[in-house]
């Protein structure tokens, strides 16, 4: 192996330093939140805690895990993420498979393509969308969080490009052996496209886990509010100009440890998914983009 040049090594070092700083910028806030969640209430409300807990206590976690509202919200989020992702991926694959066929094979493909692309350029806006959801009778149901976002056209396009990169011969061979479209899709295309499916699943999961606005406007009952909405309310706090002598208001002002604990527990599940999907991640994106 050749000895690297000075300039090369210098580049390597500065690269490492730069990337370490970026990594630190990402991870320090997490550590801070963790430290705050493990500190005593006094230390946190006096803004003394930086990166190491002061007055170590697990009180906040005990409170968080005993809080019914939190656990219910957590459950709703898990449900919407699991079912939302399953439905989303199924629809995306079905759409992408048909769209990956060319016009000779699939008559009217262009019409469908425009139908999809149109929604990328123009969408209903808040109130019309709300009206559609409401008139469809989806209010207060988990479907309100899943159906309106079930098909992401961007994902369909990514997936379609990936399918197009699969050699035609594979499909033809399967067809000669008597496989129909569903069999081709699920036994040939599916295993080959695992990297891109994993990547898009991750996008969808993160999307579902993080979206809070739909939960706020479509859900009217305490047991249907997803975690992101719950956390948003927690962080957004309340209007200080309207502060009243309500002990529970004051309590929520002073409970920075509890808030941090809730945030930490709230981000943990989605963080845990990353390592398992990471091996597909790099491969998936590049494979999907250019290949013919």
């Amino acid at each position, binding site marked *: 192996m050749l000895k690297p040049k000075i300039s090369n090594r210098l580049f390597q070092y500065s690269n490492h330093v730069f990337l370490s700083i970026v990594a630190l910028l990402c991870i320090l806030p997490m550590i801070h939140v963790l430290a705050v969640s493990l500190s005593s209430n006094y230390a946190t409300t006096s803004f003394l805690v930086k990166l190491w807990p002061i007055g170590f206590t697990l009180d906040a976690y005990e409170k968080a895990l005993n809080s019914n509202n939190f656990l219910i919200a957590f459950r709703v989020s898990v449900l919407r993420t699991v079912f939302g992702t399953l439905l989303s991926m199924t629809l995306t694959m079905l759409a992408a498979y048909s769209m990956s066929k060319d016009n000779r094979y699939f008559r009217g493909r262009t019409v469908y393509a425009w139908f999809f692309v149109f929604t990328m350029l123009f969408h209903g806006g808040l*109130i019309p969308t709300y009206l559609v959801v409401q008139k469809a009778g989806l209010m207060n149901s988990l479907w309100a969080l899943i159906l309106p976002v079930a098909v992401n056209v961007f994902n369909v396009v990514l997936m379609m490009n990936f399918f197009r990169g699969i050699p035609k011969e594979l499909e033809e061979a399967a067809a000669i052996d008597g496989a129909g479209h569903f069999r081709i899709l699920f036994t040939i295309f599916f295993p080959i496209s695992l990297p891109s499916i994993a990547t898009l699943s991750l996008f969808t999961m993160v999307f579902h886990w993080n979206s809070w606005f739909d939960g706020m406007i479509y859900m009217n009952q305490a047991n249907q509010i997803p975690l992101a909405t719950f956390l948003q*309310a927690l962080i957004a706090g309340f209007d*200080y100009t*309207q*502060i*009243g002598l309500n002990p529970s208001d004051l*309590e929520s*002002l002073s409970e920075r440890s509890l808030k941090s604990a809730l945030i930490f527990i709230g981000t943990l599940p989605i963080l845990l998914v990353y390592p398992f999907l990471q091996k597909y991640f790099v491969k998936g994106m590049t494979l999907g983009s250019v290949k013919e």
Partner: protein
Amino acid sequence: MKGQRKLLAVIISILVSMSMVAACSNGANNGDPAEVQPSASASPTSSNQEDPPAAPQPNDRTKFDPPVTITAALQLKPSDKLRNGDTPEDNPISRWFRDNLGIVTKYKWVVTDSLETKVRLAMTSGEELPDVLSVSGTLFEDLVASGKIQSIDEAFEKYATERVKDSYIKNPEIWNSVKRDGKVYGLPTISNGIVGATVMWVRQDWLDKLGLKAPTNIAEFDAVMEAFTNQDPDGNNKNDTYGLALGGNTGYYHPTSNYMADTSFIFGQDQPYLWIKDASGNLQYGSTLAGVKDGLGKLKDWFAKGYLSPDFGTQDAAKAMADFTSGKAGIAFAPGWSGGWPIGTAVAEAEKTNQALDIKPYPLPAGVNGEVGRQASLPSYGTYVFSKDFTQMEAIFKYWDTLYGCAIEDPKCPFDKGYGEGYDYVLNDGKTEWKDVPDGIVSLNAYLMLSPSSGTSPTNVMEGPNIYQRVASGQLDNVFEQKLAASNGKLTIDGFAVAYEQIAQDVPSGFYGANTATMKEKWDQLSTLEEQTFLQIIYGKQPLDYFDTFVKQWNDQGGKQITKEVNEAVASLK
């Protein structure tokens, strides 16, 4: 959807029939109340007084049979914890009203954020509103304009008890915020007048160490600030302390007025940000008054001398208070409740770790022009509005009267000990215990469908010293006093008691009405100008005389027009 509509129809018909039964049992009128109401408005109100059985009595416990169901909206807070399998619709409060008055609370909406988005979406999409909503500000205006809420004049006249009417008679200005075109569109809560009133919290140990007394005027205040900044009050031989904690980052353009770490005392009676009556009785915008210039001059001087934190403009209230409770600053102005959090918690922690932290509340010193004054608490912290299709106003006023009784320490109050056993009190062998509640005290306030006051008695209603003053002086005669004493820290009680001493000098705003036309257009811009001017003057980036330029700019950019409109609006209410 069809099923839901059917259900709704059934519910409405039940409600209507119930109201008929209720009306008949009172013997006040016969027939459908919906038809009676217009005629009641046409006839003079004295007809009610001629008919003794119709006058609603306080603590009337006649039960609605069958029960009346009222829908409301609940704001879900992460800290809300119910015990023993209770739910928002089935807890000690809702059970009492169901079992004793036949009033059932149902939550049509549970919201996590402010109600605003939800209500606005419902307004545009034609969705039905809950029967009762608590709103304020522009949302109230828009609801009135949308016609989705009812005016309550007749219902108030007919169903409100004498004592409830009396509370509004004694606080007449309160109707102004809900009166539109001569009609009242909501039931405002009445504050106890000191929720937001600031007192001066001082490091007593620092005063003692330096042989100083709590300041009562601006010259003495200057001296204390100098000593706290330069004479090493914490005795660590480092120049690391400063005088006054000031949270200049408020998020609503008022750098000298915050919910904690505020400095409104310095302006005396010339309070900025409020509409203030001048000698001729016209309203002037406070920030343009000469007294404000003097106050800003003083703050500028203090900043230059290092009495304020160099970061005060970016510190929010909590951060500035943290400077005070952690021993960086020696004085902070904050309301009485801050004696619990953050001051109380810090003092308790300091005791645990044997650190010196002795804090005491004092009355405000006189401001820069020799007058004592501070921004008055808001007269009302929210208004209940009622859907136009809602017909059960009688139940509303019964609920209201019951809780109003609790606020004015009526012995018949069903919640005299607290809202729920096992939540905010426990019974040990018949003795009430407020401190040692297993698993900690939990407030049930959030589950009150209506809450007429902020815990203690509304302004101008009860004679004699206020409950905080009574408890602070050691009086523990009734259960309300005992509860207050047991469930609040000493600093909180002292803080509120001190706040009451100066309530006569509070400066109220002369205008709580809807935003005027020019206000809607220009107010944000004017407020930004105002905030920047104040901060630049205090930070020394502009000379004090820049204030005069600001006043001119403010007037030219729409302020003059707004002042005119505000005066017209107030005149039209009379």
